[in-house]
């Protein structure tokens, strides 16, 4: 019988300094000019910063600090339910949407422009500089020396055991990608931590979680099988705080190239 209490006590909750710094500025990274289509629009830094303040005041309560809390909407990456253009964005913020699910905010034009600027800039008020190298060199490093393709799948090629990276350039900031290479233990999302399960029938399963609740856990195992377990059927269930990958040994130029390649991965 597995002890939930014991599992919970394995958690470490002392945030690293880098975690706190990153949280403090909402989302770190360079302007997502590269990661989000801006079309003809350009936005002033002041507008983006103003938008950041308005966002945290007016929007973050429902949309969340990353803009991804409302189902079917990811403001940071430009996934909306109905709007496409900046004008439509302004209109929804001004007048509300979804029969009162989103209230009308009635902001003035300056503030509306600022909020649109912040959203279109991928939530990056600071523009931390991350070196972005050559995507072509980056791809060959990804496939070869960097050993990324040993576990990650891109556009239908490669194993599924690690998260698929086909859209990673659209959903991650450059700084997050860089940190994943340099400090994977500090960057890994909790759901992706490696797990090891021993069942009552003495089967040992390794892999990563896809989903979990109080009584069950859903897993993709090392053989790429989708497995679902009742926790009450498990002899042990361990979640490793260490990711399966170690910090990269690539040079800083090479890291910049891989980041440059990853940013081109924006889905089919």
């Amino acid at each position, binding site marked *: 019988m597995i002890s939930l209490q014991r599992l919970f006590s394995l958690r470490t909750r002392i945030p690293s300094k880098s975690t706190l710094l990153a949280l403090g500025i909402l989302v770190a990274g360079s302007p997502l000019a590269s990661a989000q289509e801006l079309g003809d629009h350009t936005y002033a830094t002041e507008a983006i910063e103003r938008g950041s303040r308005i966002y945290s005041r007016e929007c973050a309560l429902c949309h969340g600090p990353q803009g991804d809390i409302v189902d079917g909407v990811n403001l940071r990456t430009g996934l909306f339910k109905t709007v496409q253009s900046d004008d439509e964005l302004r209109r929804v913020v001004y007048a509300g949407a979804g029969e009162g699910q989103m209230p009308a905010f009635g902001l003035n034009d300056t503030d509306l422009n600022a909020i649109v600027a912040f959203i279109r800039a991928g939530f990056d008020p600071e523009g931390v500089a991350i070196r972005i190298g050559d995507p072509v060199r980056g791809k060959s490093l990804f496939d070869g020396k960097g050993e990324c393709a040993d576990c990650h799948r891109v556009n239908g090629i490669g194993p599924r055991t690690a998260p698929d990276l086909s859209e990673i350039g659209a959903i991650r*900031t450059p700084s997050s990608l860089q940190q994943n290479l340099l400090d994977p233990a500090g960057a890994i999302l*909790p759901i992706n931590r490696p797990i090891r399960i021993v069942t009552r029938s003495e089967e040992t399963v390794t892999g990563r979680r896809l989903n979990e609740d*109080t009584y069950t856990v859903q897993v993709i195992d090392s053989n790429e099988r989708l497995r679902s377990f009742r926790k009450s059927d498990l002899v042990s269930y361990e979640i490793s705080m260490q990711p399966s990958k170690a910090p990269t040994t690539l040079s800083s130029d090479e890291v910049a190239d891989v980041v440059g390649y990853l940013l081109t991965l924006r889905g089919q």
Partner: protein
Amino acid sequence: MKLVNASVRFLLFFAGLSAAMQSIAQVPYDRILNANQEPQNWLTYNGGYMSQRHSLLNQLTRDNVENLELKWVLQNQVFGAWQSNPIIVDGIMYVTERPNSVMAVDAVTGRVFWKYRHQNAENARICCGANNRGVAVLNDKVYMGTLDAQLVALDRVNGQVLWQTVVGDVNLAYSVTMAPLAVKDKIMLGVGGGEFGIRGYVVAYDAETGEEAWKTYTIPGPGEPGHDSWEGDDWEHGGAPVWITGSFDPELNLTYWGVGNPGPDWNAGQRPGDNLYSDSAIALVADTGELKWHFQFTPNDAYDYDAVQVPVLADLVWRGEPKKLMMWANRNGYFYVLDRTNGEFLEGKPYVQVNWSSGLDENGRPIPTPQPEGMPTYPGNQGGTNWYPPSFSPSTELFYFSAWENYATIYRAEESEYVPGQAFLGGGFSVLAPSPGAPTIGIGRTNPINNWTDEVGYASLKAMDPQTGEAVWSYNQFDVSDSGMLTTASDLLFTGGREGYFHAIDARTGELIWNVGLGGQIVMAPVTYMVDGVQYVSVISGNSLSTFALRN
């Protein structure tokens, strides 16, 4: 001839019907006052004036609860968190739906008799979703507060509007999300808008006419005691909303209310002083609204620690002495026991990790330990608990509620100017996550995949002993829970969680006896009632209200 006979019978039938109509069961004040004498009904938001959410029904027991089966489902027609608490009167359930509809439902089949839709003003503004938490019933009327800050009285038989009155100014972002409270001949309710710089109040209306009977501001005006806990004109837009239904002690003739956060939410430095009566419990005389006492949980709050929990009342022998108690698991992470005759602080202890304060002094006032900028504050923005209704069981003498464990927020304060009707928050916050950009917990759950995991917080159902202020047992869930509680005389505890499991737990030991996955977040408490000798238990999960009873 037969035809004539039939007509005569028909006439007789109608004569009988109109005679019966004179005595159609209504819900006079006396019935609500003695709600525990008719456990087959659920007559107020929290099941009775003591707000114990404890039913004397005992058909469902430890031994047979595994035989519960689904009897019917009512599907919500509107998406979004369904936080409504049903009222059940003599086999009819009154339940609200977003944004402001009321349905009268056959409690045995789930079929709808009538549905009333309130059309909200276009400019209604609510911080945290178009929520409504239910109705009050008194005599022959059903009462609902609306998002555009009105109180609507409906004919309980046909759902027609009898009167409608303005509770607050929708242009200034006043709103109502709570179920009203019916006491004697009055309907009482409070206003939301703590994120928009309102000045909160509790207001009572004549239940027959809708005429205002009294109105008590939760921020004292010039010349009133407590006004000096504010500086300058801060009090005019200092928040202190009331958005959860209160309780009532008929012997003391006092109604009790939890008051919400001061505004702007996160910049306490902008409003120096204790900011009374924000984040307080207040006791108001039922007939006049006169403030009898207050107890402030979080003076000069910088964390949005609304005291909008249900005031749970109990008469207990407390540490050897008979006491009229009020129990309160507060959003600020402390569990309190108060003397409800005078608001005296009896006991208070943290029930989750707390670092904004290092403890309570002998009067229950917190010793503040604000965290350096950029460092996490425990409990986080949604609190150690929130508005989800607890239960107190007179049988186990334990207090049950949903807590959020290991959940923290990093706050950022900034100067903010009050603009009428606009958000007035004074900064922002982010939820502490284990890695940069990791998914975190939101106000509700809309994703079937939990990719934030328990590393940003998890649920702990706690059974508190008011004698010690400590948990006797706790029951954890992987995701956090906004579910309320229901206990029964047979020592069953029913509750839910964001994962959508509906649980029956042994109220004495915390042992799970039965559960079923309903698939959608449970963000209200279950209710129980009885019709024709069958005990039902109803719970809302996602967009479905599911009702269970024992297999035939």
